[in-house]
């Protein structure tokens, strides 16, 4: 009887200890090497169901070509993904291959969470197949924290019929022509507006695209928020002209409620036939094609509008694949990164995700040469006019800047602040940050 009573607390304590210890046990990646099989954990960030299905298909191809390696794909919802990835990297467990974006590569590498693949890529023939832009991203500062899978480049979506009705021969080539045409199309009484203005989330990106087009002759291509003089682009008097034009575009050619328009609203504005112009990434091509309101012959794409000197800055936003520093299977993880960023898998991923491709061979592919894609190809084949620049998107304060700049653009277009004030503030912000304060 007595030993039974002794047994009860012992059993309970043992159960508790087992439960606690099991929580501290090895993660899936560590357990994975059963019977010589390596199991990789891969996590994506810009998740959407179609893309996840495509990734799974490509992973299956990789597994077929690499027996003994199994990949488990984790797909968190987009709006929480980067936070989840951060937590995983912080714990140092449970992730081998991850999606690294130009906005996260800075913080991830600063904290030594991601692995420098430069030694592994040194003799890789896939490097030769990359476009100059993709190669530049892969070899930033002599380190290779990621290999891009594609680029997000802006071009102009426009309504052919509305442009014609407004009396213009073709789409606007410059920002001043854009304002002129958008004003002509604008008719609030018929719920018709010239331009799908992005005033909400991500709105600062388009404002900076205009500023960059105005200061292009003095811009530092490797750090597109700087002039060749070393000052910020926001300190240039030309930037004031750019923002004045931008405010004019909002006030006289855009829907009043576009102050709060983010990506879905601005695209909906165009696809619903409400607006005549839209500045967006190629991924929107598929969305516009699905529109029930505007037919295929009513719209087209044109290169990014240029500034007063006939040039535009092309800031190619990008994302790619990287390897976690904490991975215990770096060789296999790098192998997977190489597989996804070369040959057919890379081309398939660019096509099915509507991305500007990373491979040189894509220039000869009919898919990218015709129709709406033609403007992107045209821009890439005229590097003197559409100057490729690198924006400092990988800095640790990138998210903070994004939130601040978006709110400032809203202040600007709602009349709460003047262009000169905003630019002075931005200039001070970046000068202070670069000085390490």
């Amino acid at each position, binding site marked *: 009887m007595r030993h039974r009573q002794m047994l009860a*607390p012992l059993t309970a304590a043992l*159960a508790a200890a087992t*439960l606690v210890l099991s929580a501290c046990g090895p993660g899936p990646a560590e357990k994975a090497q059963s019977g010589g099989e390596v199991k990789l954990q891969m996590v994506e960030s810009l998740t959407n169901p179609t893309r996840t299905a495509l990734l799974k298909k490509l992973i299956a191809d990789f597994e077929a070509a690499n027996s003994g390696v199994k990949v488990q794909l984790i797909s968190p919802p987009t709006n929480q993904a980067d*936070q989840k990835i951060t937590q995983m990297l912080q714990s140092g467990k449970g992730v081998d291959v991850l999606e690294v974006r130009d906005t996260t590569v800075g*913080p991830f590498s600063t*904290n030594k969470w991601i692995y420098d693949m430069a030694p592994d890529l040194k003799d890789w023939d896939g490097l030769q197949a990359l476009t100059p832009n993709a190669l530049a991203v892969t070899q930033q500062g002599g380190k290779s924290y990621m290999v891009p899978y594609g680029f997000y480049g802006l071009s102009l979506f426009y309504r052919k019929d509305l442009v014609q009705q407004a009396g213009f021969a073709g789409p606007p080539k410059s920002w001043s022509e854009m304002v002129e045409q958008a004003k002509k199309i604008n008719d609030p009484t018929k719920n018709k*507006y010239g331009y799908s203005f992005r005033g909400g989330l991500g709105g600062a990106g388009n404002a900076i695209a205009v500023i960059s087009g105005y200061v292009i002759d003095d811009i530092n291509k490797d750090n597109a928020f700087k002039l060749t003089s070393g000052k910020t682009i926001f300190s240039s008097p030309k930037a004031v002209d750019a923002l004045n034009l931008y405010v004019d575009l909002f006030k006289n050619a855009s829907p*009043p*409620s576009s102050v709060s328009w983010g990506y879905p609203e601005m695209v909906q504005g165009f696809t619903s036939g409400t607006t005549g112009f839209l500045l967006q990434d190629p991924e929107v091509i598929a969305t516009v094609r699905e529109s029930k309101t505007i037919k295929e012959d009513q719209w087209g794409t044109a290169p990014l509008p240029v500034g007063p000197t006939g040039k535009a800055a092309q800031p190619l936003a990008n994302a790619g694949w990287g390897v976690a520093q904490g991975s215990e299977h770096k060789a296999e993880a790098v192998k997977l990164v190489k597989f996804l960023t070369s040959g057919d898998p890379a081309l398939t991923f660019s096509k099915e995700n509507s991305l500007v491709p990373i491979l040189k061979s894509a220039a000869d592919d009919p898919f990218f040469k015709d129709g709406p894609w033609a403007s992107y190809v045209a821009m890439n084949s005229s590097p003197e006019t559409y100057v490729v620049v690198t924006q400092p998107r990988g800095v640790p304060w990138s998210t903070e800047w994004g939130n601040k700049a978006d*709110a400032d653009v809203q202040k600007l277009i709602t009349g709460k602040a003047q262009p000169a004030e905003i630019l002075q503030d931005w200039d001070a912000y970046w000068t202070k940050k670069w000085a390490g304060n």
Partner: protein
Amino acid sequence: MAVTDTRPAASSRRTAGSRPPAGGRRRFSGRTALVLLAFMLPAIVFVGLFTYYPLLNGISMAFRNYNLNDLSDTSWVGLKNFRTLVGDEMFRGTVRNSIVWVVGSLVPQFLIGFTMALWLRRKFRFRGAYQALVFFPWAVSGFLIGILFRWMFNGEFGVVNDLLMKTHLIDTPVPWLADAKYAMVAVIAANVWYGVTFFAIMILAALQSVPDELYEASAIDGAGKVRTLFSITIPSIRTTLALTVLLRVIWTFNSPELIFGMTGGGPANETHIVTSYMIQVTQEGDYGRASAMGVMVVFVLLLFAIFYLLSVRTRTPRTRRKVVAG
């Protein structure tokens, strides 16, 4: 009516597992206590691990230089994060917005919820179906409600403007989410729609516990509807009302998801409340400053809850257990 005490007499013999003496504490032998503690250990460990450890960690972060973008220096900085917040104009704005958000949401929620509960208490055909319909919004995620209302309040293709234009209440579309003064009204309107249900559920439950005899008696005494409401209904459900208001104040103060879905805190940060701003700062990686905000929020809500409960308690007459003599 006599007040009687029907409790059993206290037993002088106390053994483990026996009924406790009235008003006294249960005593266990050392071995029994050990057994019970051992069985409770998993729960204690898990609660400690998943509730108190993160809580204490969060509090400690508030006093550290904890920025995810650069973890090379996470040293102790004392009250620096709190001083930064006090000097932050935007934070002060979010405090003001939080008060507007809570008061602006709660007053209409309470009044409409109360009215709905009174209406749903009456017996009529399909009452069950109506109740299910009324309570449905409570089952939907706040973030989703935010996105739905964001489209509804869209200036160009939103249903709200469409209805107002068709009924000629407005001539030109209102940019609901683009203008600061309208945006706050829009998010509060959405929150009122979302939160009315909770009040209705709670008040209806309380109303159903009020004996019909009281209403019959007041009708015999010739009391009108208003008099009955203030003399019978409200005093009978006073405790439920007080606790529901307290819970809703805390929840509404801590509910940024609807604002996040609808405006993202815009235009120009005009609809940010403290908790939505806290999420934004967390996303920016500054966990130290975000934790400082969290600590402040907990402290303020704790103070509010204490004062509120004390003030309600002093005004609530002591109830005595009454046993109706048969």
